[in-house]
């Protein structure tokens, strides 16, 4: 299992807590960035290993249920969720600069 790029770091101020706060952002500039999110995500999906890509694509782009994905790919529910979680986490991490750019950067937690 490769390490998630997405986790709070072990060396953060309180163990197991965010080294820096992810920022949801709320300013109007967000609208300018939104269009880019989709394009950026496309790149992220293309770069994923095929097992992650297939699960992410079916669940989140096509909107299949987890049961449908499990039966189409003949995989277990837990396995499906692990793959989906990794794929989504990578996508989120790849969009981090956008989230930070919007909210004016990270705060210390």
């Amino acid at each position: 299992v490769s390490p998630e790029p997405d986790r709070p770091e072990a060396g953060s101020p309180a163990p197991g807590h965010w080294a820096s706060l992810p920022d949801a952002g709320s300013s109007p500039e967000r609208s300018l960035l939104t269009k880019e999110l989709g394009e950026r995500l496309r790149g992220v999906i293309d770069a994923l290993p095929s097992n992650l890509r297939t699960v992410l694509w079916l669940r989140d782009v096509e909107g299949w249920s987890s049961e449908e994905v499990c039966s189409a790919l003949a995989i277990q529910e837990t396995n499906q969720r692990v793959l989906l979680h990794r794929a989504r986490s990578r996508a989120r991490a790849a969009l981090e600069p956008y989230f930070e750019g919007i909210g004016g950067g990270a705060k210390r937690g």
Partner: protein
Amino acid sequence: MKPSADMTCHELAELVTTYLDGALSPRERERFEAHLQGCSGCQAHVSQMRLVVSTLGQMEPPAGEDLPAEQGRILELFRARGLHRRGERERDIPLGLGSERAAIGDHIAYFWESEREFDAIAGYLAAGVSLGQACVLIGHVAANERLLANLERQGLSVRSLVEEHQLQVASVRSSADGLLLEVDARIKDAAHRGMTAVRVLGNLNWGRGTPGWPSDREILRLEAHVTSAAERLPSIVVCVYDVTTLPGPMLMKGGLECHPLTFHRDCLRPNAHHVPPGQFL
């Protein structure tokens, strides 16, 4: 809460997908939500994960020929089953409001001013029930009771509809995430019972300010995510907005900006003020 039961941010980050799938055990879910309630970092994290999911849900699926063979094969299978949710949405389901028709995946803001307009909402539920769909009410107990009384007046037996799970009264939770999970669970339950679609009626503005009620901020967060949830589950969602008592910002942001469609003065209309969640949140 005892420190030993506390969830860390790290644990929470690992469980987000399971949480969003509604697959945590009740105990884990309780720990998850307890942590989330008090941690703005994790709230932002969960928000971002949701934003990723809803942005993905708005992407155009690639054309068949651009796909690797393995994905193309799966897409074929999907389309063959007639489940593809993309493309033109045909509005052919009687909405039960005026003489309008709706499509699965619609998320509608219902603006009401007069008592007559409020009572007319029962038509939305009655139409759903008559089509064999499940109806989920989420709102203040007084609002629910009034709508259910209107259903009775139309000759429907609320008691037997509730017993058959065609009518479900969902519990109100104070967070957007909790509410989304609650609605999600009801929709999945109805789908498992073989119902073809679920009509959700949200009336969260009635109980504003009462203890345990979601704050305006949480209601707005919920609304921003409902459109993509409605599109991925077999549901129609109508949210009720009282134009005479709600403050302007709630009407503008919650009513206008979060709904692709509005119903006002007996007409269903496409809403040019709708803002996708990526821009809204």
